[in-house]
């Protein structure tokens, strides 16, 4: 049956901001769905609060609402747009939950909107544990025994039924805190009690323990004719007990016989039918007892997921695209397989390679949290690698992570290199037994230390198949290092090492030579990678889509064209500081190349992204973004130019080595990049242009740092050079702080000096994005930060256009930006950060590349800056492109950062110079208050319009908080404050109620938060004393999801937001309407 003709307009709900567990994979799936539906002639209406997504580009839908994803907003959109159907399965859990809420409100019924893809009943059946259990029992499948308890009596009763060990999971806690495994009654008494206390609703779930069981996932698709196919099977290397998002996973399944696999396949088909997902994809997770093969169902997601994005990239089968087509009536045998072009979507992809996904963690940014993995996801991104063997894919994956490692150890960065000797056996065992982000490297240490396989298995419960693979890598490493003395490695061994995924840097380290030596030998012996196709069919059919990975084998399948071609280097795995914004720019580069008729070649290693969709670029190389891997592709493809300025720091770091190798870099040249990044050269340039920067200096040790600080005066900002996202960056107010922190900063970037800048207290910070063609520079947008200077620009909310800066200064900003662009010979994008203090303009830094704010500015102004920049790099002038004047909008756009503190127990939520946010949202409206309120709603800060506001600020903020307090009072809020603040407000005639600090005694402010007596928290502090009053208040705010701010500027903005919310009802408007 072809597509449904009764549907015309379809509403899609996006996933909103990037948060841990909901990353940019939903932009990938949403973008595919929008494209697929529009291809079929449907009108697409979209809501997504995340401006950094491709799906919110105006070309992707008829009506794009960058509005907060709340049921109320969705209702308004439905009321306005009157769609025929709502497709809820593409926007992650956010999309699903919002759709259910909207349905429950009766909105769908009222406006006669049909839910397509998955019905409410199906979603509930999959999401509600009890309904799910019943459904599974009905089809003779088992899920872990479990029960919900609210009292200790219930705990004991349930334990009786389940038997030990039991997993204790408190309901509604932050980051899975308070849970654990109880092995006996005594454990259970202690843990259950703690769990009940930790739970917001005094409730825990007790569950049969399947810790250490093997974990599997199947991606299933079904059409309305009841055809079901399995797209991909995935085996988790890390066993049950570690969130699948935090596990190293492998496709396809490795350690099941066909008989066992088919049982699992039958089960997933039965599950998708029983749950009733009529059309589209689902993800089913299983646990298998390694001792006897007993299989249980862990969960089922009735929507596209992170795993389905991975499965799409791993197989070449576009799950989200097909899901969208199935939702509008097609059957699998009516849709063609794009990759082969000759077969249909009704088949099961088969792989002739091995895919490894490795999560990327960010524990270094949250030193208060232990590096410990549990069932609550902690990773912020992931990388995928493809090889013809697991060993090759694993080592490629490790170097794709961009954590400074070049493979599975032996790269000069092992424990032995950093700490004078290998780790002790007891340390290794400890690191094996408690899952953590470094466990992979400790597996290597374990084999090097000759710890027996069975002990390693017992401690990790990682299947021996995987352990043996790692051991094989270690064995080969040992064999190679035996060549150290002679410094000779045979060609045969070298080939084997390359086929095992070893990088030249590892081999150089192992044989005491340089990477250049290794490359020379390889060149001579013609040991070069070949490129194979990801074709969904293991070469059974000819593939038409060029999606490649490298391996060391005989036959190369890369089809090299003689067209003009440009290579785009992507941004690798998402991390805090380098996320979806950069992928957005890379995708735009690709689109622009297509528009210009230039062949686009994308290189990236991140499976979550739109850039790694096989039809985004003319060619896709799914490869690590390292010098070695990238140069090999360049050698094969011989592109006319390489774009390095869109993928963040990753490609920028490669620009110099690529340039040295004679690769043409498009746009701004590496010398200019260096001039902007090198302190001395940069200062010289500013001097020449008569621009000022805050006083500063560089130091190589703590002593020298202190001297410089004395000279320029405290407070100062201390940071290492050559890192992105403000890693190890801090504002210090005195010598002791400075010396302590200088040491940390020196360690963060060894071999590089640390930078010390005068900190401009209470300055206004501005972010400027500009584009230049070499002769003309046009400002893309000037953003005013809401939080004052000192808070990382990535964590600060910002407004476009600025509202608190006078025109004279804005003109000065524009002039300075243009002068620097000219001086640096910028061709393409440039971002400048300025600070304004006492009417004076300071240049903080210049980045000669696309910045994190490019998508936001593009969405706010309607100017596709990254596309224009690409065309400029190809030689077009801005004049030719028709972009000759800065666009100053009459509407106000606000960007707000979204922070991951709720995932990390014990972390303080204060903002500082080190970036902590994972994502962003945008609010647009005609005035600042409304736009800001929308941004807050989008960031899940549910601003109250009435109730009680709690205020507690440090002394230096007291004067400033007065007007905030006054306004809240006039808005009808009750004000409660702790002792000092209370007295100060009293003295200034602002009525308030005094409340105890935690340290004073009960009842105190945290009691009030717990009891729901406080609706908004304003709390500033330095965060220096651990676990002080402020910390406890901020953690309580997180725990109970009370909106809070830790800055005065934030408080003022919230005030305006609430004022706007009280004044009028929020309205919705499409970005297409904003930009006519």
């Amino acid at each position, binding site marked *: 049956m072809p597509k449904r003709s009764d549907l015309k307009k379809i509403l899609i709900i996006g996933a909103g901001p990037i948060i841990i567990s909901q990353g940019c994979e939903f932009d990938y799936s949403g973008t595919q769905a929008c494209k697929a539906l529009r291809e079929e002639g449907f009108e697409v209406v979209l809501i997504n609060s995340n401006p950094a997504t491709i799906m919110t580009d105006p070309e992707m839908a008829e009506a794009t609402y960058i509005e907060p994803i709340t049921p109320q907003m969705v209702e308004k959109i439905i009321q306005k747009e009157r769609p025929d159907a709502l497709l809820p399965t593409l926007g992650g859990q956010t999309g699903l939950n919002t759709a259910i809420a909207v349905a429950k409100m009766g909105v769908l019924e009222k406006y006669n909107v049909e839910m397509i893809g998955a019905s409410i009943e199906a979603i509930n059946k999959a999401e509600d544990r009890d309904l799910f259990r019943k459904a599974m029992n009905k089809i003779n499948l088992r899920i872990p025994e479990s029960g919900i308890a609210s009292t200790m009596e219930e705990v004991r009763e349930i334990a009786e039924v389940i038997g030990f060990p039991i997993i204790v999971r408190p309901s509604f806690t932050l980051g899975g805190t308070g849970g654990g495994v109880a092995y006996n009654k005594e454990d259970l008494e202690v843990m259950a009690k703690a769990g009940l206390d930790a739970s917001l609703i005094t409730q825990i779930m007790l569950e049969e323990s399947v810790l250490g069981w093997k974990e599997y996932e199947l991606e299933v698709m079904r059409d309305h*004719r*009841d*055809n079901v*196919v*399995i797209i991909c*099977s995935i085996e988790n290397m890390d066993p049950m007990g570690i969130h699948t998002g935090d596990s190293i996973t492998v496709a*396809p*399944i*490795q*350690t*099941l*016989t*066909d*008989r*066992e*696999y*088919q049982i699992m*396949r*039958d089960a997933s088909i039965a599950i998708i039918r029983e749950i009733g997902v009529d059309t589209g994809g689902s993800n089913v997770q299983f646990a298998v007892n*390694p*001792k*006897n*093969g007993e299989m249980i169902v862990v969960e089922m997601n009735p929507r596209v997921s992170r795993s389905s994005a991975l499965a799409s990239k791993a197989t070449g089968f576009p799950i989200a695209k097909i899901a969208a087509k199935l939702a509008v009536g097609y*059957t*699998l*045998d009516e849709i063609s397989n794009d990759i082969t072009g*000759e*077969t*249909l979507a*009704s*088949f*099961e*992809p*088969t*792989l*002739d*390679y*091995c895919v490894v996904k490795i999560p990327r963690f960010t524990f270094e940014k949250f030193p208060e949290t232990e590096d410990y993995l549990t069932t609550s996801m902690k990773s912020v991104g992931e990388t995928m690698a493809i090889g*013809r*063997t*697991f060993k090759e894919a694993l080592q490629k994956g490790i170097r794709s992570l961009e954590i400074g490692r070049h493979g599975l150890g032996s790269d000069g960065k092992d424990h032995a290199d950093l700490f004078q000797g290998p780790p002790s056996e007891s340390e290794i065992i400890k690191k094996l037994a408690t899952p953590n982000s470094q466990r992979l490297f400790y597996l290597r240490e374990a084999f090097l230390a000759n710890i027996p396989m069975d002990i390693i298995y017992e401690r990790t419960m990682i*299947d*021996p*198949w995987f352990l*043996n693979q790692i051991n094989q890598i270690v064995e080969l490493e040992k064999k190679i290092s035996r060549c150290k003395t002679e410094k000779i490695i045979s060609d045969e061994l070298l080939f084997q090492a390359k086929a095992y995924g070893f990088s030249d840097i590892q081999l150089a380290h192992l044989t005491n030579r340089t990477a250049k030596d290794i490359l020379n030998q390889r060149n001579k012996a013609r040991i070069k990678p070949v490129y*194979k196709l990801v074709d969904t*069919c*293991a*070469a*059974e*059919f*000819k593939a038409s889509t060029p999606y490649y990975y490298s391996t060391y*084998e*005989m*036959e190369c*399948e890369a089809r090299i064209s003689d067209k003009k071609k440009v290579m785009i280097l992507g941004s690798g795995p998402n991390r805090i500081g380098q996320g979806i914004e950069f992928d957005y720019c890379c995708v735009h580069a690709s689109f622009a190349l297509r528009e210009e008729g230039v062949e686009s070649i994308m290189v990236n290693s991140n499976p979550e992204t739109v850039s790694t969709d096989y039809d985004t670029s003319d060619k896709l190389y799914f490869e690590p973004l390292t010098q070695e891997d990238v140069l090999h592709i360049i050698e094969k493809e011989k592109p006319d130019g390489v774009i390095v300025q869109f993928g963040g720091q990753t490609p920028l770091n490669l620009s110099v080595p690529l340039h040295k190798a004679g690769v043409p870099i498009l746009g701004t040249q590496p010398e200019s990049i260096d001039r902007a990044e090198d302190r001395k050269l940069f200062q010289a340039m500013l001097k020449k242009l008569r621009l000022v920067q805050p006083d500063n200096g560089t130091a190589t040790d703590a002593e020298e740092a202190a001297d410089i600080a004395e000279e320029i005066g405290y407070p100062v900002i201390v940071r290492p050079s050559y890192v992105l996202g403000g890693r190890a960056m801090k504002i210090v107010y005195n010598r002791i702080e400075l010396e302590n922190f200088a040491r940390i900063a020196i360690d963060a970037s060894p071999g590089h000096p640390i930078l010390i800048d005068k900190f401009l207290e209470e300055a206004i910070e501005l972010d400027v994005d500009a584009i230049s063609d070499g002769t003309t520079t046009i400002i893309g947008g000037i953003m005013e930060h809401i939080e004052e200077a000192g808070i990382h620009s990535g964590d600060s909310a910002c407004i476009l256009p600025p509202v608190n800066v006078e025109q004279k200064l804005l003109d000065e900003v524009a002039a300075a930006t243009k002068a620097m662009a000219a001086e640096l010979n910028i061709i393409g994008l440039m971002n400048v950060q300025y600070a304004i203090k006492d009417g004076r303009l300071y240049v903080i830094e210049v980045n000669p590349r696309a910045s994190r704010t490019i998508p936001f500015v593009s969405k706010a102004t309607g100017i596709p800056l990254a596309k224009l920049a690409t065309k400029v790099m190809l030689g077009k002038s801005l004049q030719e492109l028709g972009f000759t004047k800065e666009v100053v909008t009459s509407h106000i756009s606000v960007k707000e950062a979204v922070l991951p503190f709720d995932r990390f127990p014990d972390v303080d939520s204060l903002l500082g110079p080190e970036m902590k946010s994972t994502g962003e949202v945008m609010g647009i409206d005609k005035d600042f208050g409304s736009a800001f309120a929308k941004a807050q709603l989008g960031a899940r800060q549910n601003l109250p319009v009435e109730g009680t506001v709690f205020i507690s600020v440090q002394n230096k903020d007291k004067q400033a908080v007065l007007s905030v307090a006054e306004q809240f009072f006039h808005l009808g809020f009750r004000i409660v404050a702790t002792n000092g603040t209370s007295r100060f407000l009293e003295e200034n005639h602002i009525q308030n109620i005094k409340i105890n600090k935690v340290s004073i005694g009960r009842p105190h402010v945290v009691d009030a938060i717990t009891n729901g007596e406080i609706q908004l928290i304003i709390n500033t502090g330095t965060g220096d004393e651990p676990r002080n009053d402020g910390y406890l208040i901020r953690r309580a705010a997180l725990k109970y999801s009370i909106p809070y701010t830790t800055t005065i500027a934030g408080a003022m903005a919230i005030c305006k937001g609430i004022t706007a919310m009280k004044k009028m009802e929020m309205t919705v408007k499409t970005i297409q309407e904003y930009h006519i």
Partner: protein
Amino acid sequence: MERVKALIALEDGRTFPCTSFTGTGETSGEVVFNTSMSGYQEILTDPSYRGQMVTMTYPLIGNYGVNPEDVESDRIQVSALLIKEYQEFPSNFRATESLADYLKKQGVLGVENFDTRALTRHIRKTGAMRAFISTIDLNPASLIEKARAIPSMTGQDLVKEVTTSSPYFWENGKPVWIKKGELEDGSDIWKSKGTRFSVVAFDFGIKYNILRCLEAEGCEVLVVPATFSLDKIRSYQPDGIFLSNGPGDPEPLTYAIESAKSLIGQYPIFGICLGNQILGLALGGRTFKLKFGHRGGNQPVKNLKTGTVEITSQNHGFAVDTDSMIGKNIELTHINLNDNTFEGFQHKEYPLFAVQYHPEAAPGPHDAHYLFKNFIKMMKKWSSV
């Protein structure tokens, strides 16, 4: 583990240096590829692979070892196993032995460490072809000669190599051999007449899982040699006849085609794979050799009666020509969605249906298991008439 240098030579002159993981040896056969990612033990023991060396397109093979249960006949049938990387440390709770030991014990060569995708692409482009592998003679020219000297698949009767030499009953998941003289004429040979359907299965290289499926669905099965006497079969008064899968070209199997001709219309008949082709020929159709065959567990087949798609397990190098079946009083019931080839039919008048693919799976998906139930239904209906 010892690894020995080896060379694969194809009849068209292409060679692939590789390594043997089963010691020294030499072997020959038609080289084909299978795209299943699991199920190598079932593939190795499938009699339909007689005379062929199988390349697994999935690169890592041996992962879960071998076990006594996942066998499709009493021995390894392929002439060689060709893979990218042998996994010498198997891991699975049912594993009793490594794949290398299993192959070695039965004297079957296993080679690895070469570009299996290049070989697969080569076969895709040029068709399945004869090949010779040796660890002894590593001279390409001489090996290519040897490959060219192998008889072609077309026109060969490979069934005689794999069919059972004497009849047996399939009971409780295994063969129960019949002593000489025990199986004379008469219908009293069945133990469960009336409670189970008595089925005579022609063994052209039958896979055990077909027998397991038939037994599980309520059949008592007597497996007979390919050339078994029709008079005897008639004297057993079976409820149904089954024509099995098997290796190679159906055309030279004139005895089987003749038997089928005599049985059509007399008994309910179900054929799988080679059985389907024999029935096609018996009804006056033609068969032809596919370029490189269908071998894998992901082949989409459309059931033309229901409109639904089954993901099927397949293993065949020859196929029934759809056009040749026009006017043969049959209804085409299944087609392959990849290349639209003939996948199954039923007779419009007689109780007879057959499929080209493998509803018994092993390895592969179970989507088509319903066909065994259909066979039961057909026998039920027939016996009530």
